[in-house]
């Protein structure tokens, strides 16, 4: 089974975020980056499917040069090779633009299955996988917890709201957007890190994939949200702050 995992590199969790001078995206100057967490779960699922059924896991990532580090980490965890769509202009593309590049890179690979995380921690649009499936003309499902390979295709466990789940069958090839937390993530072993150095990362440019499409949805301005609610913040050492809070809970909110 040949599996492509589409991953994204995003600013590390808890990074201090500030709008850039352009006002259209964040200032990335002093940030560190890591794999988008839901994508790490998609990669894990792909590696487990390969362990069960054999085949190949190919990592696909669009992003600037620095994304190579995240790709290398995915290879160290066990992916076989990678395709890096190298572009500095990712933030200026919309979901459709990014999905078009990814789909163009996927097509000649003829994979059986394409996995991705259900959303990115930066944009949070949660659409790339679904749009890619439409562009590739294959079925999809989202918020997937488990994947079972069957004779005629796959049977997946999809999460619904309020603690409900559902199984869905579909033929291959297909695109699945994976939910976080469905597997335990593995660490790269020393051997894996060593092996990753000799694994192939094929670099392609957007131009080689038919060019980047102009965005139909564009971010005009990004900013720190205005608070709609006035939060009373208590300062001082822990004991003082706690005492002030309890005073308010008891006599103002009257919930104690």
């Amino acid at each position, binding site marked *: 089974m040949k599996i492509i995992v589409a991953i994204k590199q995003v600013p590390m969790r808890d990074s201090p975020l500030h709008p850039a001078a352009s006002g259209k995206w964040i200032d990335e100057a002093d940030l560190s980056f890591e794999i988008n967490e839901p994508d790490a779960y998609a990669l894990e699922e792909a590696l487990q499917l390969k362990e069960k059924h054999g085949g190949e896991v190919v990592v696909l990532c669009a992003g600037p040069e620095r994304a190579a580090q995240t790709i290398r980490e995915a290879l160290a965890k066990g992916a076989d090779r990678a395709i890096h769509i190298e572009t500095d202009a990712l933030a200026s593309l919309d979901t459709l633009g990014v999905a078009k590049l990814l789909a163009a890179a996927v097509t000649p690979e003829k994979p059986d299955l394409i996995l991705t995380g259900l959303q990115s*921690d930066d944009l949070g649009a949660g659409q790339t996988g679904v749009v890619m499936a439409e562009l590739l003309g294959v079925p999809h499902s989202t918020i997937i917890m488990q994947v079972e390979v069957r004779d005629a295709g796959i049977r997946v466990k999809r999460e619904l709201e309020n603690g409900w789940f559902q199984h869905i069958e579909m033929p291959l090839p297909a695109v699945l957007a994976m939910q976080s937390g469905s597997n335990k993530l593995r660490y790269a072993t020393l051997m894996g890190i060593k092996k990753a150095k000799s694994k192939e990362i094929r670099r392609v440019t957007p131009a080689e994939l038919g060019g980047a499409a102009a965005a139909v949805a564009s*971010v005009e301005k990004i900013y720190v949200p205005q608070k709609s*609610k006035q*939060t009373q913040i208590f300062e001082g050492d822990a004991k003082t702050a706690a005492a002030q809070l309890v005073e308010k809970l008891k006599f103002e909110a009257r919930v*104690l």
Partner: protein
Amino acid sequence: MSWETLAAGQQLGAALGEPVEAAVAGKGIGALAKEAAAKKLAKIWAVEHDLLDSYTADGYTAALEQLIQKTKPKLVLFPHTYQVRDFAPKLATRFSQVLVSDVIAARVESGMLTLVRQFFQGKLSGDVRVSGEGPVFASLQAGAWRADTLESGSAAVETFAPMLDTGQIRQKPEAPFREAARAVDLTAAEIIVSVGRGIGEQSNLPVVEDLAQAFGAELAASRPICDAGWLPMERQVGSSGQTVAPKLYVAVGISGAIQHLVGMKGAKTIVAINKDSNAPIFEVADYGIVGDLFEIAPALAAEVRKAKGA
């Protein structure tokens, strides 16, 4: 369709000077269409087909694509639910458009629509404009518009029968199920102490367990804690867990990703304890303490016990 989305439709329709129609899709949806017909809307489309009985991305996309081709709307609004997330991006792609997802506000200035959505899990907001041919597609975050602002009226119901055949629908869904009966009903709790990623590791949980005990509260958690298996799934608050509205909700080390906020922002009083003063949880909190939870939680437990003893 949701009542909140219809309310948003009424408001944006008025601002844009456009009529607002609602669509209900499924099988045997007459009652729901009739209910929507009692609202101030231009028309209700009852999109009826046997193949829409169980939701599938392929079926819903094909049916709504046909309705949009027929009615040619300028703006198509959805509630931002798991189901909408599953098909609306595909539907928008059919029109060479992009769904603007999880929208929290919208404004119309000289006829131009600007949609506001969150980035970086609520830490930043962004104004988004959509160009291009074809309708603007947007999904609206739960709670961003109020259902109680929905105006009553009277609308005609028209049935729309899309052309669908089984060959088009590649997903074969089975019946929805629940994992196990829930032993913990968080919705009944008056006070909830909830713990998030900030707790660091499982062995630190006694700090919040003690705080919960001091408050006489149920212990709950955000998704990462349950994913890691540190607390059972049945204690999860948020869009994939339980939706709660206690009189007091104490969020400890929870940054406040939107998936969590939708599950608890109905609480009467919200307290946040977090080391990051910019964490989105402070957006909904009434009271907050910025700092190290490992110092604050024990101090707070002590003060609560003192206050209750007095």
